[in-house]
C-alpha cells in the first residue's frame, strides 16, 4: 500500500471526507472499494435503529412514583418512632409529676370528690405501691387539642358514667397523631387518677 493510500484510509476511517479522498478514490480502485465498504457497513448499522417504546414515559413515571413511595415509609417510620417516644416520655413524666404533687394532699384529704360514685370507688380500690399503676379510678379526663376529638368521644367517659367504666386496670388509650399539638393536658386531671397510659399511633 502506498503511503498516500494509508493516509487516505485513515481519513476514511475517521470519517473526515474531503476532496483529497474523492480525487484519490477516482484513480485508486482499492481505496474506492474500501470507502464503499466502510460506508456500506455504516449504513447497514444505521438502518437497524430502533425507537423507544410508545409507553416509555408512562412506564418511567410509574417507576419514579414507585421508587418515591418505597422511600417514604422508611423515613416516616423513623419519624413516627421518635415522635411516639417523645409523647410517651412526656406522658410518663407528667404523670410522675402529678403523683409527686398529690402525695401530701392524699394523706390529709378530708373531702370526697364531688360525685357519690367517685367516693364509693375511692374507698373500693387502694392505691398500690407502684408509682405508675394506681388501682383507684375516679375521674380521668383526657383533653385533645387537635382533630381527634371525634375519636375520643367514642372512648368510655368513666368520669360521667361509672357503670360503664372499664376494668380498674384497663389502660386509657390516648390517640396520637404526628404533628399534633400536646394531646394529654395534665392540668385538667385534677383529682383524677390514671390506671395507666397507653400511646397508640394512628
Amino acid at each position: 500500500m502506498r503511503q498516500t493510500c494509508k493516509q487516505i484510509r485513515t481519513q476514511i476511517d475517521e470519517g473526515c471526507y474531503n476532496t483529497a479522498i474523492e480525487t484519490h478514490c477516482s484513480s485508486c480502485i482499492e481505496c474506492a472499494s474500501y470507502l464503499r465498504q466502510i460506508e456500506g457497513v455504516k449504513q447497514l448499522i444505521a438502518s437497524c435503529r430502533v425507537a423507544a417504546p410508545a409507553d416509555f414515559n408512562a412506564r418511567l413515571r410509574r417507576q419514579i412514583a414507585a421508587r418515591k413511595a418505597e422511600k417514604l415509609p422508611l423515613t416516616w417510620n423513623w419519624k413516627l418512632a421518635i415522635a411516639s417516644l417523645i409523647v410517651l416520655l412526656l406522658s410518663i413524666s407528667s404523670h410522675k409529676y402529678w403523683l409527686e404533687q398529690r402525695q401530701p394532699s392524699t394523706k390529709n384529704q378530708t373531702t370526697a370528690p364531688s360525685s357519690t360514685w367517685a367516693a364509693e370507688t375511692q374507698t373500693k380500690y387502694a392505691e398500690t405501691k407502684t408509682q405508675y399503676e394506681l388501682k383507684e379510678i375516679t375521674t380521668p379526663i383526657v383533653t385533645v387539642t387537635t382533630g381527634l376529638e371525634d375519636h375520643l368521644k367514642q372512648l368510655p367517659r368513666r368520669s360521667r358514667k361509672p357503670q360503664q367504666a372499664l376494668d380498674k386496670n384497663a389502660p386509657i388509650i390516648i390517640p396520637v397523631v404526628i404533628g399534633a399539638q400536646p394531646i394529654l393536658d395534665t392540668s385538667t386531671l385534677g383529682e383524677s387518677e390514671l390506671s395507666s397510659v397507653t400511646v397508640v399511633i394512628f
Partner: protein
Amino acid sequence: MCSLSYSIELAPATAELPEQLTDHELVEAVGKGDETAFEILVNRYKGQIVNFIYQMLQDYDRAAELAQETFLKVYISARKYRAEHSFSTYIYRIASNLAISELRYRRRRRWISLLNPFGNSEEEKPLDVPDKAPLQDEELIDDERRRAVSRAIKSLPEKYRLTLVLRDVEGLSYDEIARITGLSEGTVKSRINRARNLLREKLQQYI
C-alpha cells in the same frame, strides 16, 4: 392506620419551560424538582439511549428496561449533577455501564449454563428484534439483513462493540467516546476500525 399516598405528575412541556433550554439547564431544573424539565430531557434522549442499549444487547425489551433505569438514575442524582462535560457524555456513560454490566451478567450465566447442560443456553435464544406487522417481500429482505447485522454486532467483542455503536450508530465524536469509555482517543479509533473491519467481513454479502 397511617396511610400515606404519593403521586407524581410528569406534565407535558409547557411554554413556561421551553424546549430550547440546554441540557444542563434542564438537569438543574430537575434537581430542583421540576418534572416538566425531566419530561423534556427524557423526550430528548430516550430514542438514542434505547437504540444504543439495543445495539449493545440486541435485546429490545431489556434495552427498554435498562434505558428506563438510566433515566431513573439521572432523575435520582440530578441534584448532585455537576456539569463537567456534556450531559450527553454523562447519560451515555450511565447507559454504557448498565449495558456492559448486563453483557457481563449474561456471559456469567452462559458459563453457568455450559456447566449445566440441561439448562437453557443464551446462544439458543433467538435474536430479539422489535415486533413488526406481517412482512412483505421487500420487508422480508430488510428483516433478513437486519438480523444479519444484529448477529454480526452481537459477535463483536464487547470492547469493540461499545466504541463502534457509539461512533457509527450514535454518531458521537471520538473525543466524546473517549470520555464515556475512559479510553484514549487513539485506542478508541483503533477499536472502531477493528470493529468495522470485522463487520465488513461478516456482512460482505449485504454491502
